[in-house]
């Protein structure tokens, strides 16, 4: 068990919890957060320094609401880190980061790790509205925002901006994306069209987190272990990407039904 060492309220529905503990991890990996007597759910690491790490949570259902209401010194259980993480860009790469809402969380430590002098980065970040844009002051480099309500940046989708950047003549060789699955799927399609390698971070219901129980299986991939990050090679074969997911019972359903089931 670890004590919550601090909390940063990003906005009324997003908060980052910090813990004083060192983790050896790769950007894109996740931990299982246990709130005793509530539940245990996966969260990607959104910041990691020598002796501290953080996870950023969007209040959605019972669990995540409970999580962002945790106070300093509250005890929670942390298992992990689990999963594969992103493949880091190489010097000389030109990459795009495409994040939807809380999807910036796993991408943020990737941005921290990259040597910005050697990798050219285009960061596109979308949210419902201005207040829901995560980590607005965390990064020094320029970012391209879009909001559903137009309260900041482009009014519309991150995919619009990605297409625009490509049309503008930017030649990306890697795109990293995290956000709603439908958004990631669109990003993947754009990448396929332009022959860009794409990495997405998938989300499925999880139990063990280490590739045993099968709760998170997506096609022939075990999301908690083979993923949560999948690159274009695997995505091409992944029929269930943006299509189906397993309920807690193990039943395979359409993605919409999966998210509907999760309503409190």
């Amino acid at each position, binding site marked *: *068990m670890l004590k919550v060492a601090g909390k940063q309220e990003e906005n009324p529905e997003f908060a980052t919890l910090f813990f004083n503990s060192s983790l050896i991890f790769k950007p894109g990996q996740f931990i*299982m957060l*246990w709130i*005793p*007597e509530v*539940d*245990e*759910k996966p969260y990607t690491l959104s910041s990691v320094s020598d002796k501290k790490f953080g996870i950023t949570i969007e209040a959605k259902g019972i669990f995540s609401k409970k999580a962002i209401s945790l106070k300093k010194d509250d*005890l929670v*259980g942390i*298992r992990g880190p689990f999963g594969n993480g992103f493949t880091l860009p190489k010097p000389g790469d030109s990459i795009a980061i495409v994040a939807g809402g809380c999807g910036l969380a796993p991408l943020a430590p990737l941005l921290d790790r990259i040597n910005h002098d050697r990798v050219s980065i285009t960061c596109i970040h979308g949210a419902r509205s201005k207040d829901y844009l995560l980590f607005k002051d965390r990064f020094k480099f320029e970012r391209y925002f879009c909001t559903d309500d137009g309260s900041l940046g482009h009014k519309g989708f991150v995919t619009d901006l990605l297409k625009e950047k490509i049309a503008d003549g930017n030649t990306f060789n890697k795109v990293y994306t995290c956000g709603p699955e439908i958004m990631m799927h669109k990003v993947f399609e754009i990448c396929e069209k332009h022959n860009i390698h794409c990495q997405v971070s998938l989300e499925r219901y*999880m*139990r*063990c*987190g*280490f*590739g*045993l*129980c*099968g*709760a998170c*299986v997506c*096609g*022939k*991939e*075990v999301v908690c272990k083979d993923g949560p990050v999948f690159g274009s090679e695997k995505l091409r074969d992944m029929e269930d990407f943006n299509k189906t997911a*397993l*309920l*807690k*019972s*193990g*039943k*395979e359903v359409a993605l919409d039904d999966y998210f509907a089931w999760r309503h409190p």
Partner: protein
Amino acid sequence: MSIQFLDTTLKNTTVLASGILGNNKDILERVYNNGCALVTMKSIGPEPRDGHNNPTVIDLGHGIINAVGLPTPGYTNMEKEWKDLETRDFPLSASIYGGSVEEYARVAEFVSKQKPDMIEVNISCPNSEKHGMTFGVHAKSAHEVVSAVKKVTNVPLIAKLTPQALNIAEIAKACEDAGADAICAINTVGPGMVIDIESGMPVLDFKKGGLSGPMIKPVAIRCVYDIYKAVKIPIIGLGGISTGEDAIEMIMAGATLTGIGSAVKTRGINVFGLVTKEMTRWLDRHNSTIDSIRGAAH
């Protein structure tokens, strides 16, 4: 080292344990392609069931504790899964459970129409108050369940037993008498409990859970040893196998096949291929065959 088991020819002795990696064709096929000879589906029950809340599966270092709690879409609720599996080209065992003798029979009857190569009757799960294990700790109820299932299906039957029975050999014999074609032993041990001392809470939401992995191997070996003495039907030895040497030990205790569950965590999905390679190497080095070492410890 191809081997005949019930009516099926298997490419080696390794079996995916029930409850590991689920029920979907793609992932089960991947397990098969990684060297597994026979894949067992996650136990299927009579009604849709979510199982327990998390935490449900915890790594203890020398093994795993789990109380997944028999989640199941319910046997009638798996059209897609059954349809996908129709076109499979690998041997499949469908595991089933129920809350009553009648339910076991009902599930078995339906499932056998989906044409699995065998049906495993799980009378040994400790993670639900109502299901499973209660039937496996008494010879009489074990006999009733297997008899009832036998009546409604021609698919070869495997009875999966719990080490919690006072006399597992007696239970195995009752299952054999009731028409079981094979025994699978063992399901998880215990149950156990792990308390997080900082919060003072049991770490599993269900509080108690079954133990598996390396720490239960001695119990599994003893059970298979006892069962081998008591029955003529073949045994799937299961519990704590991670290496070829572990599998050899299980066969020496009397097993025909060697199941693998928790080691999928420690060695990956490729564990089936690795274990088979290690077994072959061991057998070659000792100028032995699977058949010549089976039951050697007796």
